[in-house]
């Protein structure tokens, strides 16, 4: 895989943003992932933290151990020499969801908004294979796309003060899962029994950048007896 010339943006004196594109685009995101794994693989000294996102990789470093110039040079060199065969294959992960009811309070509204039945919304949402673009803003929250145009929906006008753990939501062409209860403005259509963040587990999240995700509907009974 080839990299185009990256755009470097310094974030203070201890972080470097490497921009590989400017939009939500799977190809750009694959390059971010490639650079991310290449950096993990080469164990460049002085690197403290790597945060991949839609179109950029943030590299947090110890400025007393490596200079910004040294880091940039290392990255350019890495892009030339990266060996794709050392990059782990993305996984395909199936996520069960109870759609609608108390677990998906926005499903009916969404169906009306798009002039279809709730079952149609469920079908569109669960028959699509999503790409995990990044994990953030809270631990384990996967930003996934793209939601089919038929059910693309703006965020709620008024965000909820508390969205329960496991809630599956839609915001424009993105779908996501709330790993812990938190405030949120996404349209909530269901809930999964899968735990998306477990600080005691390794790794602490079941999903990573680049993974493919399929949702599938389950009944309440299956949810209640769910065993990981």
């Amino acid at each position: 895989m080839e990299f185009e010339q990256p755009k470097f943006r310094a974030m203070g004196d201890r972080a470097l943003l490497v921009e590989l594109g400017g939009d939500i685009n799977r190809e750009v995101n694959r390059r971010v992932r490639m650079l991310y794994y290449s950096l993990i693989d080469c164990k460049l000294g002085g690197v403290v933290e790597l945060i991949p996102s839609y179109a950029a990789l943030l590299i947090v470093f110890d400025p007393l151990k490596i200079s910004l110039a040294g880091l940039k040079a290392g990255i350019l060199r890495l892009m030339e020499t990266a060996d794709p065969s050392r990059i782990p294959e993305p996984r395909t992960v199936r996520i069960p969801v109870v759609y609608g009811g108390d677990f998906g309070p926005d499903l009916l509204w969404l169906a009306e908004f798009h002039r279809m039945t709730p079952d149609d919304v469920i079908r569109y949402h669960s028959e699509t294979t999503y790409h995990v673009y990044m994990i953030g803003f809270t631990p384990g929250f996967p930003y996934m796309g793209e939601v089919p145009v038929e059910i693309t929906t703006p965020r709620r006008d008024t965000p909820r003060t508390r969205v329960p753990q496991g809630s599956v939501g839609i915001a424009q062409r993105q779908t996501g899962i709330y790993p812990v209860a938190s405030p949120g403005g996404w349209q909530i259509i269901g809930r999964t029994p899968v735990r998306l963040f477990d600080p005691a587990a390794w790794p602490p999240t079941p999903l990573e950048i680049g993974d493919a995700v399929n949702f599938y509907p389950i009944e309440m009974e299956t949810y209640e007896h769910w065993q990981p």
Partner: protein
Amino acid sequence: MATVAVMEVKGVGPLTTIQDRGRFGFGRYGVAPSGALDSVAMRIANLLVDNPEEEAVLEITLPGFSASVLADAVIAVTGADLGWRQNDRPIRMWQSHRFHKGDMIAFRELNSGCRAYLSVGGGWELPEIMGSKSTNLSSGFGGLGGRSLQKGDVLWTASPQLFWGAGGRKFDLNAVPAYRGCWQLRVVLGPQDDHFDADAQDLFLNSDYRVSTHSDRTGIRLLGAKISAKEGMAESILSEGVVAGTVQIPGDGQPIILLGETVSGGYRKIATVITADLHLLGQVLPDDHIRFQAVTMREARQALWRLEEMIGRFRDSLS
């Protein structure tokens, strides 16, 4: 090595949490670093009691915290002056003191700064989660059960008697940063400084900002000159990773300095506080004044060397 109960919490101020150097390497899973906001005060507090610099301490926000000592131990307090008392007598901060079983610790009044750091010789006996004892409040893990300390909590430490000899160590008060309430923070412009025209950048660097009361461990919100992105730019950018100290400009144009509880965000960032000044952010209070001063990457690096040299000199003086 015997683990002993060393302290029982009797009163809590607005917020007291367990924090160490922070949790690094897990940003890719959306896990923020957390950690002591004033890492310099935290490191000195540990050195004063002969702990490793990165050991966990109590981060005490504003006065109100009190505790009883359950076993003989060496204790030091650095950072904000919150009226530290041993058995109702004020005692010198930035120094380690020998406490005996039955002694009382209290923090009575706000004199300067925002957060005090309390270390105990032997450290706090708590599990490391993802390599750190720091409390992540929003996700509820780390520290003591992922929460702030509460009345009745008992804290444990390993073999405090081994640290008795560290009692009486002093840090030079002339080297303590002044927490005056008017802060000049050095920044490196960027990463999205090019999204703001020269006038907006000048306005940002030449304005006096007041700290909003809606500031906490996640960020310092500022009130003052409204900064706007260039004409025609969308309110947000693609979500990307962030570090503590980045100054983001949301739609209302009022800057927010992010602290260590955030890993990613979709607002543009006009500047980033340099590493050498990050620790000051832990001592900023609501209604304080902040001005930003742009420096070069080279100046930022030199400032960091000087800061590390200062800590290094103190470390060397102990052996």
